[in-house]
């Protein structure tokens, strides 16, 4: 399909910017064929263009490059639903459900899938699970009349609602993708519009609100950023980086008490991220909670022993506690790696 036909297709669908982005992503995919992100993005653009076979090949390529690429897996699964390839879709989402049994979104998709193929009993079971695991699903199903008196109800209206949810998936992700593209170009107001469209089409997806939060954060409209991050976290309370981003935003507003609370949750949800332990340590040390700060810095260094400034902070905290031997040990370790660090050298000389 040539670019003119693509453009016509998108005009019909009323999505601006599509042609430019499609051409640029296609070009970038040719230059960097081994970038899974680009393959996935191009696949998404092809879905909306109405080229499911082309889209399938790019999602598969993304997964070939990175077999753990969850977004590409979900995009492929949804594409199979669109193509009526139920068995392949079912295999993908059941495998995802086994991997993430408490992911309400996957249960929600399985519910839609079984509903489409007439397995209403299984559909009801998975929709109920999605209500159990995804707080937003309960509210949404209640609003749409699917969840009434603690039971899933299927009628003609339900059928329309579920079909709409299904059709909106790829468009929502396309708007999200365009939003990310615009945000990278620094066009934050346009990016906000795209993320808003995505959130309207697929109101249960925390990611669009998280992206909105990030654009507002970059714009400097912190109150709006906080609202969007909080919305994302209401939808997905396990979104650890959402708490971290919330914490950074509170930090910029000087609301360090709330920043600390959020960072503690971020660390709890992502205990393997050295950077989060480091930031939590800063928050503790700013509040003179040195014992807890040292504990977090040690954790950061256990994860990444080359985390240089974590070691500098640790040395300074030992100094504050008059633990000269420990402070010297940390400074010497730093100077072995960066002998030109005058600041650390001076600190070491002062206590030697």
């Amino acid at each position: 399909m040539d670019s003119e036909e693509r453009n016509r297709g998108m005009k019909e669908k009323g999505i601006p910017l599509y042609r430019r982005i499609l051409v640029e992503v296609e070009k970038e995919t040719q230059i960097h064929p081994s970038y899974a992100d680009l393959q996935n993005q191009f696949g998404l653009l092809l879905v909306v263009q109405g080229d499911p076979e082309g889209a399938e090949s790019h999602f598969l390529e993304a997964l070939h490059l990175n077999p753990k690429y969850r977004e590409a897996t979900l995009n492929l699964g949804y594409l199979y639903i669109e193509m009526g390839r139920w068995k392949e879709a079912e295999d993908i989402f059941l495998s995802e459900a086994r991997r993430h049994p408490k992911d309400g979104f996957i249960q929600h998709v399985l519910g839609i899938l079984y509903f489409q193929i007439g397995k209403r009993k299984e559909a009801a079971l998975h929709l109920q699970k999605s209500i159990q695991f995804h707080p937003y699903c309960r509210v949404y199903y209640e609003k749409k009349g699917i969840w009434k008196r603690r039971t899933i109800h299927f009628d003609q209206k339900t059928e329309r609602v579920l079909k709409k949810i299904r059709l909106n998936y790829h468009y929502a992700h396309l708007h999200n993708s365009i939003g990310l593209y615009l945000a990278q170009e620094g066009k934050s107001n346009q990016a906000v519009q795209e993320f808003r469209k995505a959130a309207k089409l697929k109101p249960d997806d925390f990611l669009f609100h998280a992206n909105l939060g990030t654009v507002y954060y970059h714009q400097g409209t912190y109150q709006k950023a906080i609202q969007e991050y909080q919305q994302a976290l209401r939808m997905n309370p396990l979104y650890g980086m959402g708490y971290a981003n919330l914490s950074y935003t509170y930090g910029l507003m000087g609301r360090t008490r709330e920043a600390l609370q959020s960072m503690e949750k971020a660390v709890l949800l992502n205990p393997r991220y050295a950077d989060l332990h480091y930031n939590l340590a800063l928050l503790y040390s700013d509040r003179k909670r040195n014992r807890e700060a040292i504990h977090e810095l040690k954790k950061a260094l256990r994860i990444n022993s080359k985390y240089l400034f974590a070691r500098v902070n640790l040395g300074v905290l030992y100094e504050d506690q008059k633990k000269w031997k420990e402070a010297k040990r940390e400074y010497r370790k730093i100077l072995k790696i960066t002998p030109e660090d005058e600041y650390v050298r001076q600190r070491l000389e002062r206590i030697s």
Partner: protein
Amino acid sequence: MMLKDDFVIQSEIRRILVRTNVDYSKINFGTVKGIVYIQGAFKISRYYTDGTSDSVQEFTRKTLVSLEKKIRTIPGVSDVNFQFRNWKKEKGRWIPKKEIEE
């Protein structure tokens, strides 16, 4: 001078980096009692030049100067310690250096 929380400074640096034309995925930074540490490889994400190596270098240099200025104006920052693998500051001027792979 009133000391500002290290975490607040850290948040300000994060925001400056994401808003600057720099590939911040290759940069690490930390704050120790108002002293800022920045490490990694300094790369520009988008060049607005004619593409010649001289113009690219000059553009990178100007971006570094601007970044340094922004960080130094954050309230509470007493010094900035740059430890880039590919650029160093000598006698007040930024010069490229041969990158050492880690």
